[in-house]
C-alpha cells in the first residue's frame, strides 16, 4: 500500500523461534503428548511466537532494516531466540 507521503506500508510477520540447540520444554511436552492422541512419528516440535504488525517505510529494504533492528533490540532475546521476518 502506497501512503500519501510516497512511502509504502508493509505487512510484517515476525516469527520468533528458540535458537537451534536451545532446549524447548514446550515443544518437548507437545511432542510427548501427541502419541497419546494417536499421532505417531512426530519429531522436532518447536514452539515459537508470531508477531504481526504494519510498518511504513520508503522501500522494502528500509522496512526490513527497521524490523531487523526491532528484533535485535526488543522482539527477541538474542541469547536464546532468533527471528524470521516476512514482509508483504
Amino acid at each position: 500500500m502506497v501512503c500519501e507521503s510516497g512511502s509504502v506500508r508493509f505487512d510484517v510477520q515476525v516469527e520468533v523461534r528458540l535458537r537451534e540447540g536451545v532446549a524447548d520444554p514446550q515443544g518437548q511436552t507437545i511432542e510427548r503428548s501427541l502419541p497419546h492422541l494417536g499421532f505417531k512419528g512426530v519429531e522436532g516440535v518447536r514452539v515459537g511466537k508470531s508477531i504481526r504488525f504494519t510498518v511504513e517505510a520508503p522501500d522494502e529494504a528500509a522496512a526490513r532494516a527497521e524490523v531487523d533492528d526491532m528484533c535485535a533490540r526488543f522482539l527477541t532475546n538474542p541469547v536464546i531466540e532468533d527471528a524470521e521476518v516476512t514482509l508483504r
Partner: protein
Amino acid sequence: MTRVGVVLFPGSNCEQDALEAVRYLGGDAELLWHGDSTVQGVDAVIVPGGFAHGDYLRPGAIARFSPVMAAVADHAAAGGAVVGICNGFQVLTEAGLLPGALQKNRGLSFLCTTVAVRVESTDSVLTSEATTGAVLRIPINHFEGNYTCGPETLRELQGEERIVLRYVDNPNGSVDDIAGICNADRNVVGLMPHPERAVHAILGSTDGAPLLQSLLKTGGRLRATA
C-alpha cells in the same frame, strides 16, 4: 544505615516482602517507582520478584525500558549494589546488566517450593557475609528460572567464580546448576531464590538473612572506593 531502594514496577509482587526483610535486618528501605528516572541516592537497589509489566513479550523485556532502569544501570556502573531476585534477575539479564537469559523450567512446571542452594563464592555484594560451601534453604517461586547462556559466557562465569549460588538438586534445568550469578565487578547479583522470604523463623527459614545482611553490611559497596 544502609539505604536500600526496592523498585516497584506495575506487576511487581515481592516488593513489600523485600522492604520488610531489609527493615527487619536493620536496614533502611524505600520504594523506587519504575517511572522515575532516579534511584533517589540509595546505597543499594533491589529489583524484586513478580511480573513486571505483566511479563508481556518475555519476562523483563518491557521492564528494561522503564525510566528507572537507566538510573539503575548508572548506579551499577558507579559501583553501587544491584540485586535482582527472581523476576528481578530476569529484568537484569534483559537489561544487559547480567549475561545470559532465564528460560522456561525444564519439565514445564511452575515451581513453588523451598530448595537447597550452596554458596559458591563470597566475593559479591550478596554473599560477602555468607560462608563458602554453606547450604541455604531458600524458597523458589518461578516458571522461567532455567538459566542459560552461550558456552563462552559460561566459561567466563565459571573461570571468574561468578556463579555465586548453585542448586544442590537442580529443580529447573539451569545450566551448571546455576541459582545466582554476579557481574564482573561483583556488585550486580541476580538469583532465582527469594532470600527475602527466608529471614525469620516464622517464615520457615532464616537462611536468606546472611545474603541480605551482606548487602546491608557492605553498605551497597563491596570494596572501599578511593
